[in-house]
């Protein structure tokens, strides 16, 4: 049954429905409702919540709990996610599955607290040190956030890899009617024989990212990249909207895609053929569907729309590979475009 939920709280409940029992966080706007909700809700479920002394500590608590076999997560917003990066690199290196939520805000520095998408590079190009990837989702509305979160721990476990969900204050703070899926039975989850949890029967389980021999470390990197290739083959998620006959294809993710949809509907009413490709995963990026659109005769150009100075547009250009022009419209600092801004931009640019 659908109920009216605040975004951040729905996301927290969806995590619990998906099996999360341990949450470690530190206050930062605009994600505070997630730790606040978890602080009492996890106790009801027999799990635990710790308000950590910092984001650095919180992500290392995730390393401990998840490395010990539990479904564990943290959430934060941009500056806090920067602090977590060393820990995320360790999680990726040691192949510890977990979930991280970033409700992005404007930067750089302390920046602001209004919606922004300036953490795209940080999320999909690594963020921390070394060669690694998180699996990164950028859901477009609260229900989709809930659905992605619900399965995020399964995906993380399947690949033994950190999963990140990125949104912004618009999604976190707004209220919508959403349905929380049925609660997963923790007893039916696949076992984690690799987890460091004591009573090992004589064979040590080790959660570790140090490989001091360069050859071992190179092998480890190759193994990780084999896994990432598998993720790229299996996990790409995206939505196409009115692209069949589109001359201009918008590319946008998260709450921005929703604004684009409104602009597209308005432009269509005026007979302008526009559509959209909306990445739901930004790593792995929907390269192939974009490349396929770039091959289509009806597609004249792409318009990437972001709440940043232009980050995802680089991946769009790599995917389109020069076949068609790729234009960019961006606002930043927490300023959010209106559908009318996009309508005007398209009409004037035509």
């Amino acid at each position, binding site marked *: 049954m659908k109920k009216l939920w605040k975004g951040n709280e729905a996301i927290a409940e969806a995590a619990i429905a998906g099996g999360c029992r341990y949450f470690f966080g530190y206050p930062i706007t605009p994600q505070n409702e997630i730790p606040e909700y978890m602080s009492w809700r996890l106790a009801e479920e027999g799990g635990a919540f710790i308000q950590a002394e910092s984001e650095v500590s919180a992500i290392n608590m995730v390393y401990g*709990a998840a490395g010990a076999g539990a479904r*564990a997560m943290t959430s934060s917003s941009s500056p806090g996610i920067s602090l977590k990066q060393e820990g995320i690199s360790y999680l990726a290196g040691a192949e510890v599955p977990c979930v991280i939520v970033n409700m992005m805000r404007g930067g750089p520095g302390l920046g602001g607290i209004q919606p922004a998408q300036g953490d795209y590079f940080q999320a999909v190009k690594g963020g921390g040190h070394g060669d690694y990837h998180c699996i990164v989702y950028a859901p477009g509305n609260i229900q989709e956030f809930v659905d992605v979160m619900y399965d995020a721990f399964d995906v993380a476990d399947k690949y033994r890899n950190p999963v990140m969900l990125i949104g912004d204050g618009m999604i976190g703070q707004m209220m919508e009617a959403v349905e929380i899926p049925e609660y997963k039975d923790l007893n039916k989850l696949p076992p984690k024989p690799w987890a460091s949890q004591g009573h090992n029967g004589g064979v040590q389980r080790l959660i570790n990212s140090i490989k001091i021999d360069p050859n071992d470390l190179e092998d480890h990197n190759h193994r990780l990249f084999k896994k990432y290739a598998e993720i790229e083959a299996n996990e790409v998620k995206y939505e196409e909207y009115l692209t069949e006959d589109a001359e201009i294809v918008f590319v946008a993710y998260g709450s921005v895609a929703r604004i684009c949809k409104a602009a597209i509907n308005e432009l269509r009413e005026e007979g302008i053929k526009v559509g959209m490709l909306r990445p739901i995963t930004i790593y792995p990026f929907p390269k192939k569907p974009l490349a396929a659109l770039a091959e289509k005769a009806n597609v004249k150009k792409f318009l990437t729309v972001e709440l940043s100075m232009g980050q995802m547009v680089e991946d769009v250009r790599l995917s389109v590979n020069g076949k068609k022009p790729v234009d960019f419209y961006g606002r930043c600092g927490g300023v959010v475009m209106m559908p009318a801004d996009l309508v005007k931009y398209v009409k004037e640019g035509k």
Partner: protein
Amino acid sequence: MAIVAKKPELLTDAHLHYCPGCTHGIVHRLVAEVLEELGCADAAIGIMPVGCAVFGYNYFKCDMFQAAHGRAPAVASAVKRVHPDSVVFSYQGDGDCSSIGMAETVHAAARGENFTLIFINNGIYGMTGGQMAPTTMEGVKATTCIYGRDPKVNGNPIHLSEMLATLTGPAYIERTACCDPANVRKTKAAIKKAFEIQLAKKGFSFIEVLANCPSNYHMTALESMEFVKTKAIPFYPLGVYKDITKEDK
């Protein structure tokens, strides 16, 4: 022939990578002996630091973590929350525990997390080649204070046991030394007490061990033990700084 001493089962046969004369190996052995004597070796989960003990997982057979520099107390807190019936210890140097990880140490202690932190205070950054640590004593030379630590330039050393003892959270805090057989036996007794506190679910236990680092003090093993005895102990007094089992009575 009767066996009077043997290597604890919990330790592997791996060759220790520590420098000759370094006390890290002794403390590893004490931890293993104590866990076996308490009958909880199988339930143990160890959290190793970044520092000379980074490869400590090679020497213990129990389940282990290698944690980011300074973050072992955060990792240990979470592991223990997930598996309250396991026996969790972190093993950390002074750079790890009292510099980069000071916040994690203080807050795990303040929360009264029910694990045991073994703090190896050798007054120097061993692994990275002898830089000054928060615990380096005045006048001691390090590669980042080549004329000796000068409090006016380099600040003052930190007495971590005393500092943590001001908190309500910790259950047991003791400082020992590892410089001669008598003190090694006292260190073992302290480690045992710490794990007993944990097994009784009384909360955070912290054992600071004054240790040596012959390589970076440019001393022979014997000289480095002498240094601990004659210089470190007077500056870092040994003893129990907190014991809630005493307060209970």
